[in-house]
Every structure is written in C-alpha cells, then in structure tokens.
C-alpha cells in the first residue's frame, strides 16, 4: 500500500518537476485548473451532490440488508390494491401497472391542486401542512425506525428514554429543516428523512409495482417539467413572475447562502403553505381508521402524498443571467446550478428530496434481492445519470428533471445485471476465475 501511494505521489512529483514547478505532494493540475475554473467549479457541484446521494443510498442499503422489518412486505397501502402473491407474469404485469397508475394519478392530482393553490396564493395552509408532514416523519416514522433498529440489535431500551430521545431528535430536526440551523445538520436531517421515506416505500410497495412506478414517475417528471403546458413548468414560471422562490425546505441545498438572501425568507413560508394545502386535501379522506398499522398506512399515505407531490414538482431553471438571485424557483425534482457566477461559490446546487427518495428506492429495491453486484451496478448507473443530468443542465441552462436519465440507467442496469451479468460473475467467482 505504501509503495502504491508513493508511486502515485512520485509520479506527480516527477510531473511537477518536468513542468518546472516546485515539487509538491499535491495535485499538479493547478496550472490547468486556473484555465478551467468553470469546469472545476462544475465538477465540484457534481461531487457536492454525489456525496449526499451516496450517503442516502448507503444508509438505505445498509438498513435493508440488516433490519428485516423493512425488507418484508406484509401490509400494503390502500393505494396499491392489487397485490396478489402469484407467479403468473401476466397477472403481475397488469396488477403492478394498475397500482403504479393509481399512485401516479395521485401525484398528478396533487400537483394540479398545488398549482391551483399556488396561483390562488393560499400559502399559510401549505406551510402548516408541511410542518405536519415533517413532524410525522421526524417523530412517528423515526420512532418506528429506532424501535426496529433496537430490536435488530437486540438492545433493551425503556420507553421514557426513548421518548426523550425521539422528542429531542424530532424537534431539532424541525428547527433545522424549517428554520435556522447549521447547514450540516439540516443536510443530515434531509438525508435522513429521504432515506426513511424510501424505506417506507420499499416496505409497502409490491416489488414489480416499484419498478413500474419508478418508470412512470420519471416519464411524468420529464413531461411535467419540459412540456410547455406542463404543470411543473407553469409552477416555475409563476414563481418567476412573482419573483419568489419555491419550497426551499424540501430541497437539499449544498449552501446556506440561498436561505439567507433577503427575498427568500418571506416567500419560503408561502411555498410551504402551498405544499401543506395540497397534502391536506388528501389526508381528510382517511382520518377514520385506527390501529397502529392503519395509522402507519395513513402516515405513509400522507407522506406519500407529500413525497409524491414534491416528487411531481418541477425542476428548476439554471442560472438566469441578469435575474435576481431568487427569481428562479426551486422544486423537489429539479436541479439548480449557478453557472454564471463561477467565482461566487455561495450559490450551491440544489436537488429535490423526491430525487433522493426515488434514487434510494431504486438502489434499496435492487439490494433487497440480496445480490451485491446488482446493487453496485445500479449505484454507478445512478451516479452516471446524475452527472449526465448536471452536464445537460450546464449546457442547457434551464429547468431540468433529475429523475429520468438516472432512473432509466438504473432500471436498465438492474435488469441487465440481475439477469445476465450476475450468473456470469457468480460462475466465475465460485471457481475463483478472475477476468
């Protein structure tokens, strides 16, 4: 190991010697970096998104593989009524397609409700509902999560300590996400709730429904963001007309400077209200049920609405030259790169939480099959899709959906790897043949 490291170090030293510089144990590319400041800035933004996406996926994969609660599907959501355990491919096909269409219909309805509300400026209700949704995830789902984690680790824990811990955990999360807090803390909480939502989806959705849903959601994302009459595009344009920013609390942001810019504070509450309003409409229908699992269904439904609605939101425009810093809105499934200000690193990249959730769902579902080759290839496929999307964003400079390319790559690679590559590699490693 030392030799390999020194070899690399020495290679760089030799190169720097050849270039007539002072030898340093550093990157020799500083010369080129000066000339390609923009390229390096762009790649820094990509890495700033690689890291949280990877952490979220790693978290989901490790929980799926160790905690059996999330990898077993016994109950189902009321939104996926067709879930017979059968091996008939035709039956599986139509059932999963119908389930996925139902969920997609929900997402579309919620998005339209959201846009109507946003146009009618009903901000406060949306903000209140957003608070309720994150309370649900941070307290209720976290309680369940910690409970099953402790039972997997076989640790004894009393309710009083658990109550105190979850209370603190949830409250700090609320403050960090919706109000002010250290950026790292906010990012950690956002990753945690995305991972938790992904786990809930993996638990409650039948297997083939998950795949069909992923494909349909990415098609919807593409249509909604790019079509001229697409709802998410209209949302973004309305936000731009009003010079407001959209939903900053459900977006993963790599910098805090965005939040502290003046015009961001006020509209933030307005957009939160919109989201809550849209989710409110869906909750009223299932308030009559009781029982812990039913409540979990409800909670999952509400979260699903929240996640789906956010998932249905638009991508965001890239840097608009000459606009105010917050003129371009932000959405859950969009990306935002400040291409113009290469010297202004305070504007970071934003990625919607819906993207985190769906990437983690894909990788988590791939890993629940037990084959780690598949998981690895899906992970790399998603990363490559994400970098391609960011590259397109840098070129296109407009609102782009983050889901389609990554999900397409991920799904293709999942099926190809699990069906073709894995048997080949297993045959090789069983006999220790290396290629």
């Amino acid at each position, binding site marked *: *190991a030392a030799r390999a490291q020194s070899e690399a*170090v020495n290679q760089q030293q*030799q190169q720097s010697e050849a270039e007539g510089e002072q030898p340093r*144990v550093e990157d020799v590319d500083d010369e080129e970096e000066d000339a390609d400041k923009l390229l390096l800035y762009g790649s820094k933004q990509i890495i700033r998104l690689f890291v949280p996406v990877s952490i979220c996926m790693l978290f989901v994969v490790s929980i799926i593989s160790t905690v059996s609660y999330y990898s077993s599907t016994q109950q189902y959501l009321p939104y996926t009524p067709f879930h017979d355990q059968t091996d008939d491919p035709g039956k599986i096909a139509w059932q999963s397609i119908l389930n996925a269409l139902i969920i997609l219909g929900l997402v579309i309805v919620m998005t339209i409700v959201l846009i109507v509300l946003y146009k009618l400026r009903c901000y406060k209700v949306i903000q209140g509902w957003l608070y309720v949704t994150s309370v649900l995830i941070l307290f209720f789902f976290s309680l369940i999560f910690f409970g099953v984690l402790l039972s997997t680790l*076989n640790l004894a824990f009393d309710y009083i300590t658990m109550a105190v811990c979850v209370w603190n955990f949830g409250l700090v999360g609320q403050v960090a996400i919706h109000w002010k807090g250290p950026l790292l803390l906010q990012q950690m909480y956002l990753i945690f709730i995305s991972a938790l939502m992904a786990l809930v989806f993996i638990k409650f959705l039948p297997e083939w429904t998950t795949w069909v849903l992923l494909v349909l959601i990415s098609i919807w994302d593409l249509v909604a963001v790019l079509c001229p009459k697409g709802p998410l595009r209209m949302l973004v344009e309305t936000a731009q007309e009003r010079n407001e920013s959209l939903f900053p609390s459900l977006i993963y942001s790599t910098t805090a400077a965005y939040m502290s810019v003046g015009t961001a504070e006020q509209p933030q509450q307005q957009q939160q209200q919109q989201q809550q309003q849209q989710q409110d409409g869906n909750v009223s229908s299932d308030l009559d049920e009781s029982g812990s699992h039913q409540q979990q269904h409800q909670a999952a439904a509400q979260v699903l609405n929240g996640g789906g609605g956010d998932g249905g939101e638009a991508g965001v425009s890239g840097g608009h030259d000459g606009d105010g810093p917050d003129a371009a809105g932000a959405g859950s499934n969009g990306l935002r790169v400040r291409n113009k200000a*290469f010297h202004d690193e305070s504007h970071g990249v934003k990625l919607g939480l819906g993207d985190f959730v769906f990437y983690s769902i894909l990788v988590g579902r791939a890993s629940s099959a037990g084959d*780690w080759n598949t998981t690895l290839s899906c992970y790399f496929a998603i990363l490559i899709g994400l970098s391609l999307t960011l590259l397109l964003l840098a070129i296109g400079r407009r609102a782009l959906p983050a889901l389609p390319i990554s999900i397409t790559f991920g799904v293709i690679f999942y099926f190809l790897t699990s069906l073709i590559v894995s048997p080949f590699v297993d045959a090789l490693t069983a006999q*220790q043949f*290396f290629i």
Partner: protein
Amino acid sequence: SSQPASAAMTLLEFFGCSLISFSPALIMFIFTVANNPLKIIILTCSAFFWLLSLLLSSIVWFAVVPLRKQLVFSMVVSILFQEAIRIAFYFFIKRAEEGLQKIALAEDASAEETSQQSMSDNATGGSGGGGSSGGGGGAAAASSAGGSEPLTDADQVTLTAGTGRPVKILHLHSLSYVCGLGFGFMAGAFSMVNLLADISGPGSVGLGGEHEGFLLVSSVLALMFVFLNICWTVVTFVCIEDRRLYFLAYVWGSHLLCSLLTLLNSSASPLLSLVPIMVSLTCALIGLLLSLHLVEANLAGFFTSLVSPAWMLRVCRR
C-alpha cells in the same frame, strides 16, 4: 436477525478480506483522488465503463449457450472486451475533453460579453474572430475575477487563437492513473463483493466445501488485479498517446496470462493458487516499472521516495 458472539469471528474475516483487497485502492483514492472533484468524476466514469465491458462479455456468455460451461471462452472474450473498452475510454476522454473545453470557452465568452471588452481587444490583438476574442477576453476576465495568478500571454494566445495544443483539463498521466483505479476497483469489487457479503454471515471458512485458503486467495488475487489494472491503463494510455503501440503487447499478454492462470485455482489445493498469485505479482512489478518508465519518472527517485518521507524529499531537491 440477532447476532451471536461468533459473529465477531466472521466480521474479523470480513474486514480482513475486504481490507486485503481494497485498502490500497482506498488509500490511493483518499490521498490522490478525493481532493479533486474532476478526478472523482472520471473515476466514476471509468468504473462505469468497466461495467459496460462486463455487460458486453456477459451478453456474449449468455448468448453462446453451448459454451456456457466452458468459462475459458467467455473469459478470453471478456478480456478482449475489457482491453477494447480501455482503448475506447481513452478516445472518449479525449473527445470529452474537447467538448468540455468548448463549454468552458463558451462560458468564458458569455461572461466576457458582460465585462471588459477593451481588455479582450488588447489581449488578442486582432487574432481570430469574435469567438476567439471572446475566449481570450473571457480568460482575462476569469483570471482577474478569480484573483489567481494571471494567465501568461502564451496561455491567452493558446486559448484565443486556437493554435497549438489546447490547455489540458487533466494531465494524461494522472488521468490514466485515475482510470486504472476505477477499472481496477470495479474489477475487484465485482469479484469480491458477493463473497464478502457471504463471509459476514454465520460462518465462512471454506464456504461451499472449498479449502481453507479460499477467501485469502480470492482477496489477494483481487488486490493483484486492482493494481494490475492501474498499470495496464497507464501503459495503454501513454502508448496510444505516444503511438508506441508495441507496449500494448505487454498489456494484452499479461492480462491474458494472469487471468488464464487463475484457471488453476481449484477447490482441491491452495498451493496451486500460488502460481497465479506469484505470476500476477511479477506482472504487476513489471507493469509498475514499465509505467514509471513510460511516464518518464525518475526510478531512483521513486524508490528513494518509498523509504523517505515527503519532507525529506523536498529538502533533498533543494
């Protein structure tokens, strides 16, 4: 499932084997790649390309049904695909570099339009058209805005006139090293990761009735192949760049040799596995010397640096 105390033993084996295979790659990643975001992206890209080559060879294995049991055929096909993808990656990176440079220059041009025009006129002095003057002005604007060391006239002329070699985004040698790391990591990962997952279960030695050195042999061979991939990629890239294609014979020959020797790995005896391990080690050493020679590294300095800390080397150079 609950974890009994005996899980500690298997976890030890798990960490041991994984670190045998991957710790050199991990260290190389941490110290040379992790601080440069562009390198991380290229690493991901190259890992993905290796995955593509594996996919292609699996398709061939899957398609040729009668030869599915004869893994030699598919192994040779896979090696050919890997080498082809390695060469293809070289051309891909070259093409991508040009494309990204165009993007960078276009960004500079658009930035320049809103900033000093006079500076661009002075800088270019009538060379090229509007685009190139935009590039030059943009470069000047970038350096002034960034506050970095000013671009020399030579650099400006390079960017503006479009003559001479364009400024490289990443030096070819570090690029090939990073690509090799990506290839090697993926190759090792695909051969080890399922094994490691099985190891961390309830029991591990001789998983399916194999000899007790099974895991060790696999881990060591994975380690060898990670390192070999780095050497092969460096040699390949430098060969194609300098058009000295005869060194490719080393790459192809040693890849085939090391890979086909692993056919000796049988479940009967661990001693036979020493042959592929030793041969791979020799090929790796030869590869190391060859790549150092090709990148024109100072061999004496390299071996001294193995035993001397960095500060001492800096002192020695003064």
